[in-house]
């Protein structure tokens, strides 16, 4: 009928149509700094996962004769710790614990907090008030304090540490999720979806989630570096894994006694924590910039 007569632009050649995520990836490909740090993260993760293949030395085997050998010793390239264990091996295996303690709480908190936030944001009214006020109470604790208090009272250990950290991260993620959901919910296209007769579940899944996941994901990625730091901090205080399991925070604490003998050894675990945390921070920053730009 009158197909093409209205829109002259419809006759022009169509530009390449990119989906949202494709355009994000495209922008990221130009961001060399972020890519560099993403590469570092990959390196850290891979070296932790493939630790048994990277070193044949047992990280838990003490050798009192070879205690506190400095960096550069033949065969023990990064030196040995206060019980004679190989630093390189302990760093590699320690990465497993530290990364797990960094990633798992954030992932869990995103699921739980994100879900609660979407419910609170969509429902509004009493449900919203109830959920958000409870979150406010947890917000009233500084994160370190809450993590230490909860994991300390539960007796320490890796599992309790994970639980404590998850608890610490749920309120901020819930808040972000609720804000985003409430904002999206009031937009016209959500009303249009409801006007089509869609039920609550369909509206949330098809229209709200896609627009909420972005901010939540960015925020969660920025929390990973905090989680790595906090987890190592808990271990530093003795509230993390039990010795002799290697863990960067634990190693830092144990090697403090050795700073008068070989200070450089003590610096090593800290460097590992720093590099990991920094890389996650940079990548999260880069992601935020890539996802933020509207065309």
């Amino acid at each position, binding site marked *: 009928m009158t197909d093409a007569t209205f829109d002259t632009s419809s006759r022009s050649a169509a530009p390449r149509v990119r989906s949202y995520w494709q355009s994000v990836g495209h922008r990221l490909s130009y961001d060399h700094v972020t890519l560099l740090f993403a590469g570092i993260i990959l390196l850290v993760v891979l070296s932790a996962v493939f630790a048994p293949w990277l070193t044949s030395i047992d990280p838990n085997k003490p050798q009192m004769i070879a205690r506190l050998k400095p960096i550069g010793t033949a065969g023990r390239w990064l030196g040995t710790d206060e019980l004679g264990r190989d630093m390189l091996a302990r760093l590699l295996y320690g990465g497993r614990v530290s990364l797990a303690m960094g990633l798992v709480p954030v992932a869990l908190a995103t699921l739980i907090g994100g879900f609660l936030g979407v419910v609170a944001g969509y429902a509004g009214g009493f449900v919203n008030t109830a959920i958000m006020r409870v979150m406010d109470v947890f917000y009233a604790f500084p994160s370190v304090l809450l993590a230490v208090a909860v994991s300390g009272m539960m007796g320490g250990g890796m599992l309790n540490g994970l639980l404590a950290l998850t608890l610490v991260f749920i309120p901020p993620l819930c808040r972000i999720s609720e804000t985003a959901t409430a904002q999206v919910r009031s937009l016209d296209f959500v009303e249009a979806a409801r006007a089509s007769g869609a039920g609550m579940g369909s509206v949330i899944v098809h229209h709200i989630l896609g627009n909420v996941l972005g901010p939540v994901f960015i925020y969660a990625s920025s929390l990973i570096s905090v989680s790595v730091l906090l987890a190592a901090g808990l271990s530093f205080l003795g509230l993390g894994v039990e010795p002799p399991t290697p863990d960067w925070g634990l190693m830092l604490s144990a090697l403090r006694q050795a700073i008068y003998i070989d200070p450089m050894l003590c610096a090593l675990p800290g460097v590992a924590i720093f590099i990991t945390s920094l890389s996650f*921070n940079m990548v999260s920053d880069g992601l935020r910039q890539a996802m933020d730009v509207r065309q």
Partner: protein
Amino acid sequence: MWLYALRRILYAVPIALGVSIICFGLVFLAPGDPLGSLLPPDASQADIEYLRGVYGFDRPLPVQYFDWLMRVASGDLGNSIQSGRPVLTEISHALMNTVMVSFGAVAIAFSIAFVLGTIAAYHLGTWVDRTVTGLSIAGVSVPNYWFGVVLVIVFAVEFNLLPAMGMGSGGSDNFSIFEWEQLKYAILPITTMSLVPLGVIMRNTRSAVADVLSQDFVQALRAKGLGEWAVARHTIRNALPQVLAVMGLQFGYLVGGSILVETIFNWPGTGFLLGKAILTRDVPVVQGVVLVLAICFVITNLCVDLIQTAVDPRIKRG
């Protein structure tokens, strides 16, 4: 505006109550009988029964909570299992020490960070800006407990300039910042603690000032013929409330989260007290410290909110 202030203060009350509930509930997180963690392991059966009656562990939970709350409100936070002294006394001494270093840390961080952040905002996109941004990211990525150890290595071990730990021979009652012999004990802890606030405030200042600079009224000021320094004064005045708010929050975080730094330096603050108490399972102290620190944080947030409302004319009053 007073209406808003009153409402805000009223709002803090249920939060504080919620905080107290969580603190009360901490005891029950401990594995095993809550009573077992309150008493030294060699307590006699009579002691156990007596304490059971006092704490009312045989009574229903809400009653227990209420009793505990009444005691706390009257200032009785129980006695430390380790030292036998009242918890409140121990905390009040320690709190002063923590507030001292936290305040010093935030003051130093603000002084440096505000200047650098403003400079970065004026030179957006240049190497100056990128350096500052990089520094601020580094500041929040460095584990401050590790940084403290590094400082100890450098200043105490290698060069023997500053003491590695403690608060000096005078103890906290005689501490004076005007005497070098005392002050030198505080320098490393303050420096270590200032790392994260430095990063956060620098970043915040940069974005706040950049935001203000991009607004039309700045162009208007320049068009009127105002010199750059005068424009800068106006800009800073507009960006300041937001940055001050962040500073206040950072202060709150430092006071509440000082345990790591204080452990490294054996600085006798609330964090150090908490750390010791956790290791020795001194539950009344743990409860008391967490409660006091959390309430302090609530009050800090409240003050920051109120000051911001008073200073920033854009926020709706009443």
